[in-house]
């Protein structure tokens, strides 16, 4: 019976080669593979074999049948394309079945980058409340209630003693209050100022940094921020440190980078100065240590803070700060 089957297969293969059109192909299919076809009828006789030979024959018969079916389909396709006068064509330019992919907000991307760079240097990422006590947002940062420095930040008040934090700096106090040096932290987050115009939004993002230990110097501040900005904006980025004032640092330094738009020649973005103000920094003021009970004779440290929107605008060339909070897809899709 096995021989019979193999003979049948041989004949079928040669018959298949002779087929010229779809009618002949259908006749072939019925003759060999149909319900009453030749192969089928051989297979039906399986019961005539001794039981120990049955599995082997069954397997073989199935193989023959599958093989013939496959070849039959090949011939069918061949006939079809011959009929159309051409070979089947794969259009590789047709769009694939694209799975949906999403987008992270550009502010998230920049915060992530800032945190990644600084985390590698050894800073830990910490968080704090958005709605903050006056004490943490101002008093303990050496900004007394009746001090003109309060005018530097227009504040949203919840009550006399509760404010929307105007900077991420209160996190410095919250960390130092509970931890002894060494402390090395960065704190990204939302901050709020009562200011809304073409270049300001009442909510924006900052990342704060703080390092306190024995023997931390202003030189270390310069080194850390130079390293950070070189990673953020490229090795060639020139920067300058210039004196400024923040109530919770002394000496205080504003850090500028060479304008990334004009390369220092002067343009609208840098108000023709060739420099871009990128972050504020300084050595922690001893008055702040007083609030957290650190010994200013033993420890020293530096703090810095930067606005994320500004970094993102420079990095991606975004010219309108409002876009960040409108969340239009035509904006978000670009990131």
């Amino acid at each position, binding site marked *: 019976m096995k021989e019979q089957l193999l003979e049948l297969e041989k004949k079928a293969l040669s018959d298949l080669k002779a087929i010229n059109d779809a009618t002949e192909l259908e006749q072939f299919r019925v003759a060999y593979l149909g319900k009453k076809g030749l192969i089928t009828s051989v297979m039906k006789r399986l019961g005539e074999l001794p039981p120990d030979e049955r599995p082997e024959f069954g397997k073989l018969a199935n193989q023959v049948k599958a093989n013939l079916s496959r070849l039959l389909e090949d011939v069918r396709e061949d006939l079809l394309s011959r009929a159309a006068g051409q070979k089947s064509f794969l259009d590789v330019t047709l769009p694939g079945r694209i799975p949906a992919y999403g987008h992270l907000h550009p502010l998230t991307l920049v915060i992530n980058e800032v945190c990644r760079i600084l985390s590698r240097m050894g800073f830990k990422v910490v968080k704090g409340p958005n709605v903050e006590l006056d004490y943490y947002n101002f008093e303990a940062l050496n900004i007394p209630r009746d001090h*003109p420095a309060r005018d530097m930040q227009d504040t949203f008040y*919840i009550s006399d003693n509760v404010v929307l934090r105007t900077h991420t700096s209160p996190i410095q106090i919250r960390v130092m209050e509970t931890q002894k040096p060494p402390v090395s932290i960065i704190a990204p987050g939302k901050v709020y100022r009562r200011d809304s115009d073409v270049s300001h939004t009442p909510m924006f993002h900052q990342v704060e940094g703080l390092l306190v230990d024995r023997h931390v110097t202003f030189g270390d501040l310069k*080194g850390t921020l130079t390293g950070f900005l070189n990673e953020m904006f490229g090795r060639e980025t020139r920067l300058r440190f210039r004196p400024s004032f923040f109530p919770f640092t002394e000496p205080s330094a504003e850090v500028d980078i060479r304008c990334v738009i004009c390369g220092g020649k002067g343009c609208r973005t840098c108000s023709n100065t060739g420099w871009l103000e990128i972050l504020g920094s300084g050595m922690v003021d001893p008055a702040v240590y007083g609030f957290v009970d650190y010994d200013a004779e033993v420890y020293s440290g530096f703090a810095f803070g930067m606005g994320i929107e500004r970094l993102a605008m420079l990095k991606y060339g975004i010219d309108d700060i409002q876009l960040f909070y409108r969340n239009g897809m035509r904006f978000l899709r670009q990131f």
Partner: protein
Amino acid sequence: MKISLNWLREYVDIDMQPEELGRLLTMSGLELEGLEPSGQSLGGIVVARIISISPHPEADRLSLCQVDTGNGEVQVVCGAPNIFSGALAPFAGAGVSLPSGATISDSKIRGVRSQGMLLAEDEMGLTEDHTGVMILPPNLAPGTPFSSMSSDLKRFELADWVFDLSITPNRPDWTSVLGVAREIAALIGQRLRRPEIIIEEGGSHIAGLASVSIADPVGCPRYAAGVIQGVDIGPSPFWMRRRLFLSGIRSINNIVDVTNYVLLEMGQPLHAFDYNKLRENRIIVRRAEKGETFTTLDGETRPLNDESLMICDGERPVALAGIMGGLNSEITPETQDVLLESAFFDPVTIRRCSKRLGLSTEASYRFERGVDIEGATTALKRAMSLVYQLAGGSIASGIIDNYPRPYTPPDIRLRIDKINRLLGTSLTKDAVTGYMKALEMDVRDSGEDQLLISPPSFRVDITREADLIEEVARVFGYENIPVTYPSIRPGQVNDAPELALSDQIRQIMSGLGFAEIITYSFISPKSADMLGAEEESPLRKFVPILNPLAIDQSVMRTSLIPGILNTVAVNVAHYEKDLKLFEWGKVFFQMGEDLQPNEKLLLTAVITGLAQKKSWHCDDRAVDFYDIKGVLEALLAALGLKDVTFKREKDFNSYDPEVSAGVYCKGSALGRVGRVSSNVLEAHGLEKINAFLFELDIAALLKEIPETRRFQSIARFPAVYRDISLLLNRNIESAGVVDIIKEKGSDLIESVEIFDLYEDIKSDRPEKSLAFRISYRSKDRTLDGAEVNSLHETIIDEIKLKTGGRLREG
């Protein structure tokens, strides 16, 4: 603060370009915010003489002037009231462009030819004066270029630069031209020239004219005054008006202008009283009484309280100390005798009062930062000399100087080692001494490694060693401090617990096709109504902002849904309807007045429009509940959560009660998922949109995420698959059936998949068909077919028994 370069040059020799000076100031902490030329585009304007004046035939207010331009005679129509024949004035002929951009042409004015224009000061951008043409000194030759006439007349120097400097609150000594000149002198090693003070006392002695008593020496530690009698009130000369103009101050009259001029010049606010309006010729400095009111110069009547510091005469308040004078004693054109005040007021007192009244002035700005208490009388004398120079009169001999709390300079220890340890420098004692002296500090040697420093009285910011170290750094130059890299030692602080999760969730959500949005933390108080929140809902536990910018930003959000739906609306308006958005952010719940709210982190996601858009390989398919649920399941599975269950829920705010569920993990609630109710969509202007949401409580989620994942050894024995096709009552949930399978099959059930669902909604039989594929597998052996079959039968029986369902035939 705006400062004229010419004015600065009066006190220090500056031999550099304005841009270079700007850079120098910026690098010393006086940030240059703007630099504008003034009086520099006056080319073509010449000095001309009015030869004769006749009336304009058609217009009463205009005159016809014959003008000698030095280059021939021309006819000019002029409307200025101050012209006279013989007067010299700046003239622009046809073709000359003015700083405003306008170009003069030879034209007809009311039918009469006018060959140019005689110019007023404002037309040349010199001052704001437009009372008449600018009358020039008589000794100039017609035809002299206007811009160069200053070579002879120093006080007419026109070409100037205006520096706009940002003054940090710690440096009140920089709020004056002299203060900035002093800084420049120190930076470039030049000598500072002080303003000229020439007093010719000719009047009666001050003691007989006025007296000052200070009832509140805390609020007013020094009050000096002088009197000038018989002054002529009138306009100030051009040079003074020009400088005031460049500094942004309006010219009033020669007396008031002098007080403003000296304020700008020396940083000492002054006030001029009409001496004859001061009853009893007395000044008393005291706090106001509760309920008192006072009308300031600007005509506003202001309520006072017992904190307000007042300058009073014998009977009543005459000035709001350090902020603004009173209407009742102001200088008027009729004023004859003037009392000048030069005082020091307590910064906190002035600031509180100014804040409370919402009244900030040039004077209060300086007092609240701290003026030079020792400089009060110098400024007074400078003002008296200028009044005399500008308005004549006779200066009373002597001044009053009531100084109950004289200044004593602090002695501050400065350790060289401390400087070098903080800055990372190796400065010597000599170098530091030099820096201190350049800043007019008094330096004394105080042992091997330290100095004793007394800052000058105008440096109110210097009280501690740290303040001096900053000055050392500043003068040494930040750029000269060597760059070093700290070795950061690990401390006790760890990364915030949600940090890794926030990264992971953002990555997963964006991988699942969602775009991240960031919306404001403050929203409209109406949002709770818009979300359909009931009276007691936590959504109403708003934290209100006392001073919001707008009503729709006046409370802290209690839900991320308003922000996300508003974002949907913004996008739909731009024909972006198929949206997948998420926001990770905080919500805030009121915990009581004067307390910080409870801040809670949420993740909220929305999906709208089409889940799949028609393309060459598929058709449109609208989003439905299973799209958002699927995303949530994928997210939770990716985070490693097991045993996540969903329970139908009818009472969630914002959600369609028929299409919403609670999400649980091992019994604890994680969040919600479902369709946004039609009312809520409508309230957000989205009635045509179908939107599905989920919300997750991050703190709850964090508790359920396994800290570490444990590896399960991979099954070595084959699985056996069996299907069950059931007819069940429509209301029976699939999860119930799966539970029965798992319970009955216990640890031999590897997984249960639902591979078919058929429901004929039109049929009156309340049945649906559900098909399950069970994978049986044992960890320790190959399952025997008979064993599986028998277990499978038991499971089927159990399902029939518990659900009332039956096997589907065929």
